[in-house]
């Protein structure tokens, strides 16, 4: 697995498409807002990823982590703000153009074509990322690193187990290292041993210069790898700084929520009635520094924010 990152970087023609100046930023996100239809998920998000850095993006359910990832790679169009990749404004570019600039996105869940075979899945991506000539070589490398995929190369991907499908989607990005890797919930549903391997793979391609934005719920794990951390809370950046500080930021966030939840519970107890529910909601809103209520504000596709979460 560790060998992947080293051996393949040279063969990638995508190398050089994005050239961040040494010490510069590979990704710059400014005042980004985005959402799904009438539902807004991100509010004025700004951050940057230094060249070669690993940035951990953490936050609770519905905080907008996946939306940040999707907006960067063009799956979701930003309503305001800009995304700049190594000096190129990509805010309005479609996803495939951004992908061709050397950005890879491992999506949450099973990011494979379930009706195509394992090999077809890999051929599809290698052809685009590394050119037709090196497809065979890249396939060989993928099967070497993930022998299980080699055994099942003719099998339709939809019939693989969940973990094997994750491996396949990892093989799609690890074998030909991109310039920027956006990984969404990589470790979700994987056995701990496999998670170790996955992170070794990430470290390996990072040593070869791939910058990363890693969205994770397993906070400890990703903070060890990261050189920088971002905490999102309800569509806004709550913390942007060193990984060490992130843990404290999360604790603060959680304790504030617990406090708000406890207060709300107490209020319900004392007033004891359903009529006061809106009042309670308002109090919780104030407590948490939220900006008003209503549909416009809730990232509803991932569940409305609730005091318990």
């Amino acid at each position, binding site marked *: 697995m560790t060998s992947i990152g080293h051996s393949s970087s040279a063969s990638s023609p995508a190398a050089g498409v994005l050239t961040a100046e040494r010490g510069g930023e590979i990704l710059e996100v400014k005042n980004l807002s985005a959402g*799904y*239809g*009438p*539902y807004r998920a991100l509010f004025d998000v700004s951050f940057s990823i230094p060249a070669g850095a690993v940035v951990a993006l953490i936050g609770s359910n519905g905080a907008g982590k996946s939306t940040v990832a*999707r907006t960067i*790679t*063009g*799956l*979701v169009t930003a309503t305001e703000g800009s995304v700049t990749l190594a000096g190129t404004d990509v805010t309005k570019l*479609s*996803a*495939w153009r951004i*992908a*061709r600039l050397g950005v*890879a*996105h491992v*999506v949450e*869940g*099973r*990011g*494979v*074509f*379930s*009706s*195509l075979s394992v090999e*077809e899945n890999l*051929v*599809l*991506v290698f*052809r*685009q*990322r590394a050119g*037709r000539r090196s497809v065979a070589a890249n396939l060989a490398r993928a099967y070497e690193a993930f022998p299980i995929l080699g055994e099942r190369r003719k099998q339709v991907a939809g019939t693989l187990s969940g973990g094997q499908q994750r491996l396949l989607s990892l093989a*799609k990005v690890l074998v030909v290292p991109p310039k920027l890797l956006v990984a969404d919930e990589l470790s979700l549903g994987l056995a701990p041993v496999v998670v170790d391997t996955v992170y070794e793979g990430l470290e390996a391609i990072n040593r070869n210069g791939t910058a990363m934005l890693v969205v994770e719920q397993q906070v400890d794990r990703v903070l060890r790898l990261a050189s920088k951390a971002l905490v999102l809370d309800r569509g806004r950046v709550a913390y942007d700084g060193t990984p060490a500080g992130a843990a404290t930021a999360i604790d603060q966030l959680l304790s504030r929520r617990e406090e708000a939840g406890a207060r709300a519970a107490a209020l319900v107890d004392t007033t004891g009635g359903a009529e006061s529910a809106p009042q309670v909601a308002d109090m919780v809103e104030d407590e948490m520094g939220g900006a008003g209520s*209503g*549909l416009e504000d809730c990232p509803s*596709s991932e569940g409305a924010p609730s005091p318990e979460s």
Partner: protein
Amino acid sequence: MEQFLGFAVPGIPYGCTYALVAVALVLTYRATGVFNFAFAAQAYVAALLFTALIQSAHLSEWLAFVIAVVVVSPLLGLAFDRLLFSRIPNSNNMAKLVTSISLLVGIPALMQVFIPQNYYAPPSIVFNPNTVYFTLAGAPLNGLDMSAIVFTALVLFAMGVMMRLTPLGLQMRGAVESRRLVQLDGVNAGGVVAVAWMISSFLAGFAGILLAPNFSQVQAQPFLTLMVAAIAAAACAAFRSMAVAAVAAVLIGVATFTLQGYLPTQSFLFTSILPSLPFLVLVGALLFHPGMRKLDQATDPLASVDPPLPPLAAAVRTPAMGRVISVLWYVVLGLFIVSMLTWIPRDWESVLNQGLAFSTLFLSITLITGMGGQLSLAQAGLAGVGAFTAAQLANHLGLPMMAGMVVGAAFAAAVAVLLAVLSLRLRGLGLALMTLGAALVFDNIIQSSQTLGGGSGGLGPMNNVDWGSPFGLLNPNGHALFLATFSVLVVVTLAILMIRRGTVGRLLGAMRGSETAAAGIGINLTWQRILIFALSGAVAGIGGTLLVIQQGVANPQQFNYVFSLAFVVIVVTTGVTTVEGAIQGAFGYVIIQKLLGYAPAQFANLTFVLFAFGALTYAQHPEGILEFQKRRSMQRFEPLFERLFPGSQPDAGSQGEPLIAGGLSEEAVRG
């Protein structure tokens, strides 16, 4: 054995004709994710253009071929993709279905406006139809047979190679599964899908000119019927494998010809069931092929990127606007009744009576699609079941039509229940195909059977039975027909409004929002579905009977399956979510048709063109383009309404909010 071969072999080229269409249908579905009902229309356009270029413009065959098939057909496909289908989210199956059905209805009608001449069959290309090339087991294969066999084999081979072995095929297969995921791999998904549309449209055009020499004239209907038969073959392959589809098509052809040879020619089986064989195969495939049940299942792992679809029937009106509209409705209603009884001339009275009958019929679509959330393409057929039941009872037992209507409604409801039970596990496309198959079986039976359907002339009143006089109580020459039809419509409308506001309406609303969630809170989906089918069938039966009473004859052509498609298109344009939508659709339909009667004959079909264009906006305006426009123009007057009807401020929070799964505000349903 020799006899068997003698019967079976001529079926092979016949089956190959199906196979060509079936393979192209499978390709379109696999490469674009759209089940292209408009395929028949595209084939017809190419055949018509090809023939017109040869017979009117006197171009050479090859030049005509290049223009019609190589240039125009792919451009048409490209236009479909860029202008329509690429704008519909992949998960919106209903919009994809409605859009392709509108194209199917609208394009042939449009062509008839532009090219009104009747053309005889064009020459066949490459092979000479009068030459016998081979004799297989005693059966001669002429040029038409040869072109069917050779070109089908060629297309099958070329498509198989493209999808299996080329990068483009791989990208197409990926793009069908998830356009977003394939983009993350750096593939220009929009471009790939556009190419897929162009290739499949080229095939449609190619099929069109290959098939045209088989028919005596270039008309849309045979293409349509052929396509539906080919769907059966494609369904046997669950729209996945082109090879299986081709084999199934050939088998259907062989089976048809073999049975034709063995069955006695005068039997019911020969005249009625045999022509329905492909549709019975379609029904069988839908029932027993596991792949057909998964047709509309979302495969896109990134489906959550799309904003959630609005519930099918989210009628959002501010209370003020609802109030104004309902007042206007009562005014219009009063004027209508008074006018019908006083000054309206006879011929227009009969047109408006027809409008009332169609309103009832269209309300069955409001029930099944607007409330039930299911697209049924059998409504005209169900109306026919009701109408012919009533007509037969009137003729044989002397039962008044109005009484027969009740029996007819019950019988239509029973047929609808049977249909519902058969299609319990089908959704969206599967259900649309099942109902279409049922409508075609009904069509074939009623049209071919002299006893049941009265042959080509239809069933007329006999033995001094007066169809136009309800219960024999009212004078049929006065306004009896109007009063009777009108009261039936009022009763049906009130019943639907009550159902909608009651428990059943709420349960159906929940189901439209999410079947899973509805089942989760304990709603019996099966029972609700059967119920709404039964109601819709009964209302369709009533509407059909009214139509027959109004026209004085029950003609099978009135209930042709093509009308099932057209009716859906009409109601979707004027608003499938509201009762007033159905009524507007019916009156719009009859009035426009009457007015176009004054124009040159070629414009007669413009009605369908107009409604089809309206229905193309379904993806953007699922509530109906008319309803949308009404709402928009009303919004301009909103300040005025507020002044006229003070205190009608909407509740805080309800304005602009998509109502929970089809929870229609009271005002929205008033009609």
